């Protein structure tokens, strides 16, 4: 990356101008840089100019009546530490805690994780499960895209040349959970992971299975209800594990992965249902 130039615009307009004035591959945005610096060093990208997003006023955490809006460059550690987020979308905190170690999370951003669209991303399954969307900004203005349409395949997103992720919008409240399986808890990727959430408005369960290239798979159910029985959870989890498209590789065989998917789907749903976020029998559990 010798000779690369770096600029740090402080307004959105200024940032967007850098992307409209150069050919796309020559200008690359850098947020936390935790993925990008490795890509640069390995020669996977070779831009002439890095446009840092770190000086932009894009780190907000805003509450609207039924939505939580998170600025794309807010470090994961600053989301993780927020008690209101924990209460409104507990699964997001669990997913963020699965990303690397604390020092990494002080730098890594939610926008960077989404833009990278790694099949092993720990936040994408959760964002899919809660039905989050991303607001994008480019020369043609703003547009909002559901995460389900934003993430297309491994490292493939709906971002157009010169477009940036401005913020992530999550519907709240969303009882939710994230469960993963790895060989080592840190410094390893999730071989299989499940984000799950229950929408109290529609009584719909959504689970997203991560770690299955080319991108996480979404499954929904409206028969389980707010208080699913153990038997119903098991049946649903096994059905999901049977139909989710996945392959074996050097790390784990297909059969093993399907078994783990079934276990994690069941655990995720139980975690959501039993966290007492649904219904109101908090008192009787004590």
């Amino acid at each position, binding site marked *: 990356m010798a000779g690369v130039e770096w600029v740090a615009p402080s307004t959105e307009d200024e940032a967007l101008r850098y992307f409209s004035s150069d050919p796309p591959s020559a200008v690359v945005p850098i947020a936390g840089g*935790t993925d990008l610096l490795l890509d640069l060093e390995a020669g996977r990208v070779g831009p002439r100019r890095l446009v840092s997003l770190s000086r932009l006023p894009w780190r907000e955490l805003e509450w609207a009546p039924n939505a939580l809006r998170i600025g794309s460059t807010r470090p994961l550690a600053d989301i993780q530490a927020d008690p209101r987020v924990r209460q409104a979308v507990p699964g997001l905190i669990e997913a963020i805690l699965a990303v690397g*170690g604390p020092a990494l999370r002080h730098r890594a951003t939610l926008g960077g994780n989404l833009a990278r669209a790694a099949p092993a991303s720990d936040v994408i399954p959760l964002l899919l499960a809660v039905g989050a969307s991303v607001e994008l900004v480019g020369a043609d203005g703003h547009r909002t895209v559901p995460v389900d349409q934003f993430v297309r395949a491994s490292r493939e997103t709906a971002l157009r040349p010169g477009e940036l992720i401005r913020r992530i919008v999550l519907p709240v409240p969303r009882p939710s959970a994230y469960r993963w399986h790895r060989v080592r808890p840190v410094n390893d990727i999730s071989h299989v992971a499940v984000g799950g959430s229950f929408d109290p408005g529609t009584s719909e369960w959504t689970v997203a299975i991560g770690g299955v290239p080319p991108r996480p798979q979404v499954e929904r159910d409206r028969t389980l209800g707010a208080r699913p029985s153990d038997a119903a959870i098991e049946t649903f989890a096994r059905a999901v594990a049977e139909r989710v498209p996945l392959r074996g590789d050097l790390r784990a065989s297909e059969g093993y992965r399907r078994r783990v998917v079934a276990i994690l789907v069941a655990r995720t749903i139980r975690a959501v249902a039993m966290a007492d976020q649904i219904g109101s029998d908090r008192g009787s559990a004590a």
Partner: protein
Amino acid sequence: MTSGARVSLVVNGRRREVADVPFGERLLDTLRWRLSLKGTKEGCRAGNCGACTVLVDGRPMLSCLLLTHEANGASVTTIEGVEALSVGRAVVRAFEAEGGLQCGYCTPGFVMALVGHLASPGADRSPAAVRAALEGNLCRCTGYASIVRAAQRAAKEVA
């Protein structure tokens, strides 16, 4: 098009103006090779080991994954400056008392990660939280038990 520029940092309490820092340079290299602060270690250069952990405006960060220019204007604390902080002194004492190191290569990273956690406002000093603060750091020698003991001791001392 230029490929470098001046960076202004406050390193361990002292203002440092560093001229002609290439835009692609990482803070780890600026600290070690331009400022001769060799206490910050390079282990993996890829975010995996935590040996390069320093504090940037009080937050633990991996200096191998941080462009120096991104830290422009920030206050950086390295292992060389840790004993100017009361939490830093408590952590160093605890590592000594518990024998929390063998070869010592990983130690600056563990110390900075722990200081970053314990010195943050409203830090959770429960044993589980203190242990979790060290999750991003690897040690090839100790087997971790003495490091975890040192961390728990430090957490009690600063409480």
